[in-house]
C-alpha cells in the first residue's frame, strides 16, 4: 500500500512539476508585472491606465460574443444531423470538419484576405457581373467571419461528441409520450447536449476574445481588439507591465464569462443554454 502510494507520487511528480513551471509560474510573472512599474516597484498605475482601453475591451467582448453565438447557431444543427447519420457518413463529415484545423491559422487567415480584399476573389466575381467592389477587409464583419471560420470546428466537435451519445431510443420514447420535434429538442436533445454546448462556447469564446492575428489581417489595421493592444504593448512598446495588466484583466473577464455561462446552464432545469 505504502509502496504503491509512493509510486503514484513519483508518477505524478513530472506533471505537477510541468504544471508548476509552465502554468503557475508564468501566471505569477504576469501578476508581478501587472502590479509593478518598469523599475520593479509596486504600483497600481498600470491598472489605472486600463480605463483608456475600455472601448477596446467592450469591442472585443462584443465581437467574440457575436462570433460565438453565430458559431453555435451553425454548429448545433450540424452536429445533430451529423450524429444521426450512418457511421461512414459520420466519419466522412468528421474528417471534413477537422480538415481545416490541419492547416496553419496564418495560412487560413491569409486565404480569407485573398477572398475578401479589394482585388480579391469575391470582388473579381462581382466585377464580372458589373457590380461595384465591396469593402470587406477592415470591417467588423470580416473579423467576425474570421473568428467563426477559424473556431467553428471547436464548437462542432464537443457538441457532436455529446450528441452522438444520445440514445435514439430516448427520442422515440419522448415522441411516444407526446413530444413533437420542438418538444423533443427542448426537453431531450438540448438538456442532454448541454455539456457539449458549454465546452464549445468556452473553446470558441476564449480564443475569439483574445485573438490579435485575425483582427490584424482581416481588420485591415482599422480594427483593434484587446489582443492587438497586448501584442503592441509587448512587441512594439516594450511595456511589459501594461501588457501584463491588460492580460490579467482579460483573463478575469474570461473567467467571469464562463462562470456566467455555467451558472446559466446549470440553473435552468429545462436546459436552454442560449435559446
Amino acid at each position, binding site marked *: 500500500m505504502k509502496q504503491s502510494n509512493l509510486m503514484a507520487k513519483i508518477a505524478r511528480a513530472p506533471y505537477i512539476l510541468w504544471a508548476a513551471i509552465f502554468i503557475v509560474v508564468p501566471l505569477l510573472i504576469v501578476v508581478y508585472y501587472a502590479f509593478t512599474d518598469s523599475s520593479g516597484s509596486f504600483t497600481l498605475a498600470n491598472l489605472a491606465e486600463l480605463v483608456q482601453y475600455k472601448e477596446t475591451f467592450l469591442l472585443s467582448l462584443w465581437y467574440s460574443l457575436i462570433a460565438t453565438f453565430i458559431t453555435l447557431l451553425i454548429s448545433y444543427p450540424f452536429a445533430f444531423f451529423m450524429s444521426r447519420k450512418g457511421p461512414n457518413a459520420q466519419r466522412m463529415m468528421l474528417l471534413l470538419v477537422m480538415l481545416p484545423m490541419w492547416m496553419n491559422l496564418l495560412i487560413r487567415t491569409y486565404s480569407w484576405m485573398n477572398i475578401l480584399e479589394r482585388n480579391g476573389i469575391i470582388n473579381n466575381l462581382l466585377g464580372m457581373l458589373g457590380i461595384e467592389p465591396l469593402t470587406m477587409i477592415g470591417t467588423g464583419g470580416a473579423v467576425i467571419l474570421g473568428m467563426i471560420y477559424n473556431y467553428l470546428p471547436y464548437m462542432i466537435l464537443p457538441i457532436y461528441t455529446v450528441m452522438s451519445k444520445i440514445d435514439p431510443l430516448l427520442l422515440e420514447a*419522448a415522441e411516444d409520450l407526446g413530444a413533437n420535434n420542438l418538444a423533443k429538442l427542448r426537453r431531450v436533445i438540448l438538456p442532454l447536449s448541454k455539456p457539449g454546448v458549454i465546452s464549445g462556447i468556452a473553446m470558441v469564446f476564449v480564443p475569439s476574445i483574445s485573438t490579435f492575428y485575425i483582427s490584424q489581417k482581416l481588420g485591415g489595421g482599422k480594427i483593434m481588439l484587446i489582443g492587438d493592444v497586448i501584442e503592441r504593448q509587448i512587441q512594439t512598446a516594450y511595456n511589459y507591465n501594461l501588457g501584463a495588466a491588460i492580460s490579467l484583466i482579460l483573463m478575469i473577464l474570461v473567467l467571469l464569462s464562463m462562470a456566467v455561462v455555467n451558472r446559466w446552464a446549470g440553473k435552468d432545469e429545462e436546459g436552454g443554454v442560449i435559446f
Partner: protein
Amino acid sequence: MEEKKNIIDLRNISVVFEDGEQVLRDFNLSIRDGEFVTLLGQSGCGKTTTLRVIAGFIEPSAGDVLFDGKKINGVPPYQRPVNTIFQRYALFPHYNVFENIAFGLRLRKVPEAEIRQRVGEMLKFVNLEGFEKRDITKLSGGQQQRVAIARAVINKPKVLLLDEPLAALDLKLRKDMQNELKNIQKQLGITFVYVTHDQEEALSMSDTVVVMNEGTVQQIGTPVDIYNEPQNAFVADFIGESNILDGHMPKDLVAHFAGKDFVCLDKGFAPNEEVDIVIRPEDVDIVPVEQGMLTGLVTGVTFRGVHFEIIVDIEGFKWMIQTTDFSPEGSTVGLHIEPDAIHVMKKSKYSGLYGDFSSYSDEIDQLSELTEEEE
C-alpha cells in the same frame, strides 16, 4: 368472452425495409378493447415491427392501421393515444423519477398541482413512494422498469404497447413483474399489446396469443387453445414440447400413425387425408408392455425435478414422454394414449420439420433464446 369493439385493426399490413427485407406480409390482426394480447415468436418474426407499426414509428408499405375504427396511417407517434414500454426502458437520464413520470403530462400542459397529485398516485401505484427525487441511473432494473410503467400509464393511454419489457430482468424478478403487469392491466382495464419470445410468459399472462413466424400469423387463440389445439407443426413445436408424427385419417374419430389405428376426437378430414399428429409428452402414460398400445425402448432419461423426461424409440421415431414414473435406460415400456391426447392437424409447410426427438437437445432452444437480439 363478451363481445367488445375492436380498438385496433391491422388490415393487410406489409412492411418492407429499405434493404428490401420483408418483415410483415399481408398481416391481419384485430385487438378488442381491454384485451391482453401477446405477440409471440422468435427473433425476426416481425413481432416488434408490428408493435412499431401500431405506435407509429414504422409506416406500413401497404395496408391500413385502424384505431377505434378510424384509419390512423400517417398519424405521427406523438398524436397516437398509445404509449410504449421499451425493452431497455429508455428513461430520461437528465430527469429524476418524478420528472420522468411527469414527462407526458408536462407536454400536455397539465396544471402543476394536478401533475403533483397524479405522479404521487402513480408512484404509490408502482410501489415507488419516496423515490421522487431519485436519480434514474441509481435505480435497480426492477425499479427502472416500474418508472417506465408509471411514465407510460400516467398518460391514460387507450392501448399500452410492451416490447419485451421483462427481458432484461432476472428470472425471479421477471416472475414477480409478470404478476404485477397482469394486475395493472386488470386494474386499469387498458388494452395491452405485449411482445415476447418467451412462450411461458405468453401463456400465463395473455387473454389472446398471436403466434407469429416469418412475418405472418401462424395462429391466434386463447393460451389454452394455442396449447391444446395448435394449428400446424410450427405452433405445436414452438409452444411447449410436442411429438409430431406423420399420419392419416382413415375415417372420422380414427387416426392412423406409428403403424396403428387410434381412437381420437378429431373429425372433418377427407378419407385417408395425410395429417400431422401432435401428442404432448405429458399426455402419454407409461404402462407395462403387455398393456401398451405401443412398445418401445427407453434410450434416454433426464430428471427434471417435477418429472422425468424419457426418450422412447418406437420403430426409429423418438418420442418424448414426461412422467413421474422412473423407467431405466435400456428397458422396454408400453405406451398408452387416451383419445383426447391425440391432436390432428392439417399438413402445412412446416410438416416434417419438427417434433422428432432423435437429435433432441433442449439446450438448443435455450441457446437460441440467449442469442436473441432486438429485431
